[in-house]
């Protein structure tokens, strides 16, 4: 297993797109987080006074960082589609990997991405929290980091399916993004109590909109519906993620490698 991840990083470290995208994420997350606190948009019912303080900082930083999930998801899609367009997936199967090895490699890769960005958020959050001196010990509500970890896995797992299904970078990225919007349109057409269980809805709800009143979920129209608890959301999200992985594997085994 570890060998598979080592191979992934041998491919990744000399790849400039990887550095650019993670560079953007590392650079803009703290900048946007800081800027958000300065601009103080009225439309956001956030308690700006305490937004950097423990424990609120964890909910807030993961909420902001979740805007960049698509960026890292796109990186994953590009990396997987490269394996198809360079035919290196084919070559690695010829040289002695199984199709399962391929999927496991990519799951390990995305998990390492999620871990990397979660650790980074921990550092950023800790930094902001320490400098604005909240009352609570910093471990309170740190669960938001775990939830963020699962969320970023969720986006990348959707990217995985798109990539193995479509195989071309450009088209996969377009569909990756479209599928999120298409789902939100479909959700408008079905009853709310069903819509809230849709995969991208569940996954995006993992980093809930921070509000002083606690966790509440607004749908597209801004109507607050009865929320599923965060724990339930987490469990459903994990189930979705495992299904995405399984579906991707099934797609690969059915298809020839050309």
């Amino acid at each position, binding site marked *: 297993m570890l060998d598979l991840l080592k191979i992934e990083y041998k491919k990744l470290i000399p790849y400039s797109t990887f550095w650019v995208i993670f560079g953007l994420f590392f650079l803009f997350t703290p900048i946007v987080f800081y800027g958000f606190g300065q601009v103080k948009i009225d439309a956001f019912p956030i308690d700006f006074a305490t937004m950097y303080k423990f424990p609120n900082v964890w909910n807030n930083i993961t909420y902001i960082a979740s805007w960049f999930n698509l960026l890292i998801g796109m990186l994953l899609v590009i990396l997987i589609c490269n394996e198809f367009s360079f035919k290196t997936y084919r*070559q690695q199967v010829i*040289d002695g990997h199984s199709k399962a090895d391929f999927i496991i490699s990519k799951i390990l890769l995305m998990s390492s991405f999620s871990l990397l960005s979660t650790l980074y958020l921990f550092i950023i959050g800790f930094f902001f929290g320490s400098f604005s001196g909240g009352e609570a010990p910093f471990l309170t509500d740190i669960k938001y980091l775990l939830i963020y970890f699962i969320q970023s896995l969720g986006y990348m797992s959707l990217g995985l399916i798109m990539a193995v299904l479509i195989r071309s970078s450009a088209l996969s990225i377009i569909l990756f993004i479209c599928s999120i919007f298409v789902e939100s349109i479909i959700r408008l057409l079905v009853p709310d109590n069903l819509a809230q269980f849709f995969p991208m809805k569940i996954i995006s709800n993992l980093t809930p909109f921070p509000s002083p009143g606690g966790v509440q979920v607004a749908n597209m129209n801004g109507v607050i519906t009865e929320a599923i608890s965060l724990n339930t959301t987490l469990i459903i999200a994990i189930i979705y993620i495992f299904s995405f992985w399984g579906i991707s594997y099934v797609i690969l085994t059915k298809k020839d*490698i050309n």
Partner: protein
Amino acid sequence: MEAILNINGLSKRYGKVKALNNLSLQINRGDIYGILGPNGSGKTTTLGILLGVLNADSGSYSWNGKAPSKYDRKNIGSLIETPNFYPYLTARQNLSIVCKVKEVDESEVDSVLSIVDLINRADSKFKTFSLGMKQRLAIASALLGNPETLVLDEPTNGLDPQGIAEIRTIILDLAKEGKTIIMASHILDEVEKTCTHVAVLKLGNLLTYGPIQSVLNNQEQIVVASENLDGLKLTLSQIDGVSNIQQVGNKLSLMLATGKDSSYLNKSLFDKGIILSEISIQKPDLEANFLELIK
């Protein structure tokens, strides 16, 4: 003889196209097996199935008598159609990834790069390579781990004459070490110069297979003439090792058993009182034989 590969009734279709039709073949240890056939005859399809990248519709195969698994493939050096590497990585970085996949020690990278004469470009990016250099790198990659079996699909594709000769030498050297080589090609000359056995495919059907001499009939023919053609014919039929006597115009063509040469023939005839007015050796027209075969 020990079977390295058994193929039992493999078939594969792409929509209406029958790419492979019920192929059965056995390949033994030490064979250099050529798979010969015109474009689109199913060579790559066959090798793709054998290396786990294409799913056959029906039929089965086994390497070393075992059900197919990724572990067989780690011990097979393969080059299928095009060289596949990461364009932004150097030759050395690319091969080091292959080593990891094959679970081979990375110290081998430099030695295989030397064999294909790429060692001084080891740190150039793959995308900067010429077509022939890419092909050489793919051959280097197939040599990693010193595999017992090599599967090569048009290994000299894109190489210059010197490169073709070099690859041929590499293949023959490997064959001398007792390795098994399965090589697809549509270049008859390539197969004839390197292979011990050949299978001929056309439109997915196996037309014929076996040792190369028997399939391609590549024995030299001896053409002789004498004033007394009938006497010559009669006498020839009494000489040990002469076969396939045929009249061509006012000459006779024949084949000699291996180990006998034209001076042996000349002397034998002379001893029986026949003086030849002409004796010549004719190289076989493989091209014609092959074209006849796949017609």
